[in-house]
C-alpha cells in the first residue's frame, strides 16, 4: 500500500485479512483451550465437582478491652456468648415446622420471629442465617445434646461485650451493635462486612478501628451438598484480638462526681488542665450500655429515645447553655489585658441601670452592691459593673474576640463523637439572622453570659484550663494509651496537643487567678466552697432560662489555687439544669468533688465532712 496516489476504493485486502486472522486466532486459541479443559482435564474436574469444595467459617475476633487510667481496673471486658445460625436448605421440608417450633421453644424466641428471619423464599438457601446473636452457654449445651433433632442448626462463638461500669460511664464508653446498612456503605472499603459488630456510640465508636481486631477464618472441606467431608483443624487463620485501651478516667473521681451530681439533670467534668486529660465526666440522666446490647435492646433503645430527659445525650459535650456569670472570668481577663478600666477604679451599683429607656436590674436588686472595683465586681458577680464597662470601653468586638480566644464557638476536639460547638453571637450574625441591629441590650446580655451565647460544660472547663495554664488549652481527651492485649505494653499514647493559645500577658493571668480566688474567700461562693483540704478558686453562674424562678446553676473552679506544680491542679465544672432552689447545687457538688479528690475520700465521706450529706434540701436558695 502506498501513502501517495488516490485513496483506494474500499479497504486494502491486507487490512481485512488482519482483522479476520485476529478473530480466527482467538477462535482457535479458545476452542483448543476449551477442548483441553473439557476433554483432556475433564475427568479430573468432574471428580472435583462432585467431591469436594471448601467452605469458610468466620472466627470472630475479641474486641479490645477498656481500662481505667492506671490500666488496672477494667471498665469493659468480653463475655462468652454464641451466635445461633440456621442453614435453611439443610432442614428437610417435612420437618421444617417441627424444627422451627422446637428451636423457638429452646431459645425462647417467638415463632413469628424465626419465620420473619427465614421467609419461604429462603427455604432453599445454603447460606447460614443468623437467628440470634447472644445465646448463653447452657442453651448451647442443651442444643448440643439433642443436635440430631435440629438439622441445619449450628452455632459459633461470638464474644459479647460486658460493660462492668455503667451509669455515668455509659455516656463515655458507649455501646456496640451490628453494623447498619448505612454504616456499611461508608465503611465498606475499610474492611467491614455485613454482620460485623461495630461501635455505635461513645469511645466504642470513636476507637472502633483500634478495638475491633481482625476476624479469623476456619476452612472446612465439604462435599458439593455442603456436608462436611473431613473434620480438619489445619486450615485455621486465628483471629487477632483488638488492642486494649486505657482511658484518662480516674474511677474514683468518676464515681465521686456521679454521686455528687446525684439525680439532678446536668453534668460534671473533672479536667487536668496541664495535659487535657479528662479525669471524670458525668451526665445525668444516663443509661445502661448492657441493656442496649442485651436481647430486646431495641426496645430499651426506643424507650431511651422517647424519654423526655434525653438520657442518651451526654450533657457535658452535647448540650450547650448560656454560661451566665462564669463568663465574667473571660470579661475580667479581657478588661485587665485591654486596660479597659483602671484596676482600682470603682463603679457604683445601685441595683439597677437604665439604658435606652429600659431598666435592667443587677441580680442583687436594690439597694445594690455599692461602689466596686474589678476584683470586687467579680467576687460579688456584679452585673452593673460589667454592663457599664462592656458598653463604655470594652465593646462587643472585644467580648467576641476574647470568647473565641478561650475556645467558645469551636469544637474542643474531644475524642467522643457528636460534640456541640456552642455559639458566639456577633452583630453581623444578628443582622443576617434577624435583620435587626445589635442593640446595647445585646451587648449587656453577652457581657454577663446570657442571651444568644451558648457553651458546653466542657468548653467552660477549657475556659478555666486556659486561666490555669496561663494562656494555653490542651485538647481534652479520654484515650490515655493503646495497649497490646497480651502483654499490656504501651503501643502508643496520647500526647498533649495545644488546642488554643492566647496572647494575654502572664501578669494578667496572675491577677485573674487572684481575683478568682477572691470569689471563694470573700465573694458569692464563700459559704458553699469553704473547704479545709484544698484552696479553690473559681466562679459561680446562674443562668435564666426564661421561666420564673428557674435557673441553670454553674460552678467552675480550679484547685489547689496555690499549687506549686501545675500537674497537681484540676479543673472542675458543674452544670445543673435547675428547676427549683434545691437544685442550686453546682457549687456544693463542685466542693464535694474537690474535697473527695484531694482527701482521697468517697462521696459519703467527703459530703459528710462538708456537712452536706442528707442536707441537700437545706442549702441556701439562689445565690449568684
Amino acid at each position, binding site marked *: 500500500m502506498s*501513502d501517495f496516489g488516490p*485513496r483506494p*476504493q*474500499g*479497504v486494502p*485486502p491486507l*487490512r*481485512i485479512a*488482519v*482483522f*479476520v486472522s*485476529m*478473530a*480466527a486466532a*482467538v*477462535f482457535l486459541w*479458545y*476452542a483448543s*483451550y*476449551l*477442548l483441553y*479443559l*473439557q*476433554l483432556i*482435564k*475433564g*475427568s*479430573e*474436574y*468432574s471428580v*472435583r*465437582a*462432585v467431591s469436594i*469444595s*471448601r467452605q*469458610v467459617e468466620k472466627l470472630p475476633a475479641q474486641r479490645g478491652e477498656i481500662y481505667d487510667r492506671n490500666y488496672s481496673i477494667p471498665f469493659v471486658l468480653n463475655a462468652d456468648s454464641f451466635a445461633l445460625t440456621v442453614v435453611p*436448605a439443610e432442614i428437610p421440608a417435612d420437618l421444617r415446622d417441627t424444627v422451627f417450633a422446637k428451636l423457638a421453644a429452646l431459645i425462647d424466641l417467638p415463632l413469628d420471629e424465626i419465620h420473619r428471619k427465614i421467609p419461604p*423464599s429462603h427455604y*432453599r438457601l*445454603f447460606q447460614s442465617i443468623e437467628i440470634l446473636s447472644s445465646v448463653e452457654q447452657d442453651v448451647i449445651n442443651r442444643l448440643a445434646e439433642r443436635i440430631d433433632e435440629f438439622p441445619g442448626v449450628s452455632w459459633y462463638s461470638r464474644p459479647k461485650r460486658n460493660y462492668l461500669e455503667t451509669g455515668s460511664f455509659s455516656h463515655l464508653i458507649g455501646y456496640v451493635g451490628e453494623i447498619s446498612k448505612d454504616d456499611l*456503605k461508608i465503611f*465498606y*472499603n475499610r474492611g467491614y462486612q455485613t454482620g460485623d459488630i461495630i461501635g455505635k456510640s461513645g469511645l466504642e465508636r470513636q476507637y472502633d478501628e483500634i478495638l475491633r481486631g481482625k476476624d479469623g*477464618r476456619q*476452612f472446612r472441606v465439604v462435599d*458439593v*451438598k*455442603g456436608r462436611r467431608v473431613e473434620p480438619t483443624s489445619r486450615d485455621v487463620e486465628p483471629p487477632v484480638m483488638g488492642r486494649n485501651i486505657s482511658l484518662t478516667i480516674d474511677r474514683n473521681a468518676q464515681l465521686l462526681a456521679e454521686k455528687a451530681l446525684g439525680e439532678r439533670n446536668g453534668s460534671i467534668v473533672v479536667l487536668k488542665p496541664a495535659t487535657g486529660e479528662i479525669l471524670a465526666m458525668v451526665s445525668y440522666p444516663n443509661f445502661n450500655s448492657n441493656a442496649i446490647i442485651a436481647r430486646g435492646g431495641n426496645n430499651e433503645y426506643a424507650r431511651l429515645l422517647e424519654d423526655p430527659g434525653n438520657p442518651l445525650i451526654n450533657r457535658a459535650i452535647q448540650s450547650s447553655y448560656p454560661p451566665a456569670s462564669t463568663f465574667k472570668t473571660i470579661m475580667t481577663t479581657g478588661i485587665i489585658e485591654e486596660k479597659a478600666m483602671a484596676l482600682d477604679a470603682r463603679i457604683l451599683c445601685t441595683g439597677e441601670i437604665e439604658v435606652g429607656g429600659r431598666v435592667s436590674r443587677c441580680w442583687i436588686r436594690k439597694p445594690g452592691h455599692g461602689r466596686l472595683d474589678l476584683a470586687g465586681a467579680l467576687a460579688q458577680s456584679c452585673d452593673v459593673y460589667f454592663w457599664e464597662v462592656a458598653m463604655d470601653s470594652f465593646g462587643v468586638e472585644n467580648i467576641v474576640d476574647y470568647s473565641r480566644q478561650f475556645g467558645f464557638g469551636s469544637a474542643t476536639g474531644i475524642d467522643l463523637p457528636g460534640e456541640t460547638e456552642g455559639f458566639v453571637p456577633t452583630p453581623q450574625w444578628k443582622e443576617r439572622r434577624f435583620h435587626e441591629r445589635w442593640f446595647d441590650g445585646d451587648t449587656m446580655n453577652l457581657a454577663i453570659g446570657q442571651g444568644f451565647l451558648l457553651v458546653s460544660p466542657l468548653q467552660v472547663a477549657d475556659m478555666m484550663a486556659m486561666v490555669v495554664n496561663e494562656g494555653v488549652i490542651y485538647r481534652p481527651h479520654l484515650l490515655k494509651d493503646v495497649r497490646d492485649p497480651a502483654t499490656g505494653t504501651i503501643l502508643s499514647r496520647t500526647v498533649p496537643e495545644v488546642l488554643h493559645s492566647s496572647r494575654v500577658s502572664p501578669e494578667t493571668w496572675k491577677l485573674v487567678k487572684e481575683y478568682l480566688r477572691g470569689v471563694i474567700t470573700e465573694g458569692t461562693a464563700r459559704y458553699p466552697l469553704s473547704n479545709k483540704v484544698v484552696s479553690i478558686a473559681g466562679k459561680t453562674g446562674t443562668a435564666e432560662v426564661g421561666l420564673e424562678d428557674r435557673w441553670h446553676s454553674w460552678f467552675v473552679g480550679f484547685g489547689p489555687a496555690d499549687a506549686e506544680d501545675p500537674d497537681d491542679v484540676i479543673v472542675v465544672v458543674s452544670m445543673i439544669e435547675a428547676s427549683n432552689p434545691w437544685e442550686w447545687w453546682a457549687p456544693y457538688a463542685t466542693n464535694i468533688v474537690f474535697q473527695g479528690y484531694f482527701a482521697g475520700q468517697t462521696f459519703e465521706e467527703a459530703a459528710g465532712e462538708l456537712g452536706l450529706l442528707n442536707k441537700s434540701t437545706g442549702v441556701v436558695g439562689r445565690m449568684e
Partner: protein
Amino acid sequence: MSSIKVFARSLDWIVVASVAVLMAIGVMFIYSSGMTSDGQLVSTEYAKQIVWALSGLGLMLAAALIDPKRLPEYVSILYVGILVVLVYTRIFGRVVNGARSWLGFGDLGIQPSEFMKIATILFLSRYLEESAHERHSFRRFAISLGIVAIPMLLILSQPDFGTALVFLPVYLGMAFMADVSPRYLWFLILTASIVGVLTVMPLWQTLIAADTSVALRMFYEAPYVYYVLVAAVLGFGLSVLGYRLFKKRYYYWMAYVALVVIIGLGASMLGRKVLKEYQVMRLVVFLDPSVDPLGSGWNILQSITAIGSGGFSGKGFLQGTQSHYRYLPQQSTDFIFSIISEELGFIGGIVVFSLFMLVSVRLILASRTVNSPFQRGVLAGMFSMVLFHFMVNAGMAMGIMPITGIPLLFLSYGGSSLWAACIGLGLSLGISARRYES
C-alpha cells in the same frame, strides 16, 4: 413497498439468526441459573431477559432501517448527550457493585456506559472520516484518542474497569481501519502493555511468581523506579537533541522507546496508587487462582471446575451441579459461559464460539465493499467490541483472562448491554445491507 422487500432481501439474515440463537441460549441458561439443586426456581431474571431479548431484536431491526448516510448528522449530539448523562451518573448515579454506574428510574435502571460505547464508535468514526486527508498526522491520532479517552476515563472513575477497558481495542480497531499511522498505534499498544504489566507486577511477584526476580523490582519499587525514570527522561532528552542535530533516523526511534518507558512507568505508578489491592488481585489471580482460594480466586476455581466437569457433551440442561448448588457466582451475568459449558459441554461451547465468530467475521467482511470511510469505521468498531467482549468474558470463565466483569454480549443477563449491542449491531447491519446502493 418494494424498497422494504429489497432491504429485506439484502439484510444479512445469517447475523440476525446467529444473534437470535445466542439470545435464546442466554435466556435458557439464565433460567437454568435461577434454579436451585432441588428444582426450585428462585429467580425470575429469565422472564425479564425474554423481554430484553425480544425488544432488543426489535431495536436491532429498527436500527438497521436507519439510512447510514444520514447518520453522521446526528452523531455529535448523540456523543455529547450521552457524555452529559454519563457525567450526571458519575455524580448522582446509583452504586451497584461498588461502581457509580447506574441511572435508576424506580425499579428500572440503565447503565449509560453501555450506550456510550456505541455513541463513541459513531462519533469517532465521523471524526476519522473528516480527518482522512491528514491520515498519518499526529494531530489526528491525538484528537481521535481524546474522543475515546474522555468517556473511558469517566467510566474508569466510576470505577468500572472492565467497561472502560473495552474502549481501547475499539479504538485500535477503528484507527487501524482508518489508517492512523501505525507508529502511533504501536506506541499506544506498547505503553498500555507496560502500564498493565507493571501495575500488577508487585502483587504478581509476591503472590504468584515462583522465584521473584530482583531485576524486575527496579520497575516498580521506590527508589529504583525513580532512577529508571530519570534515566529514561535523560535518554529521551538526548535522543531528541541528537535528532535535532544530526537528523539520523535512529535517534527518532530511541526517543520513541524512551517515551514509551516514561509514560508506561509513570502511568503504572499512578495505577498502583489508585487501584486497591483487591482490585489488582482480581487482575492477576487468574494466573494462579489457588493463591486466593476464598476471595477472587474462588470464582475462577469454581468456574473452571464447572466448565471442566462438563466434558464433551455436558451434564444436560438443568443438570449442572456447580451451578445449581450455588458454588458458581454471578451465573447469570459474568459467568454465564461456565454454566453453558457445564450443561452443554464442549459441543455447546463450540457452538457459542462459532456464533460469535460468524457475527464478527461477517461484519468485517462486509466492510470490504463499503465505500464510506465512516461506515467502515462503524463496522470495525463493532467488530472489535463484539470480539473483545467475547474474548475477555469467555477467557475469564476459562481462567485465561483477568476478572474484569464485562458481560458476554447477547447472553449475559442485563438490559443495557443487550440493547446497546443490538442497536450497534443493527446500525452495522443497515450499513452492510446498503453497501451496493450507489
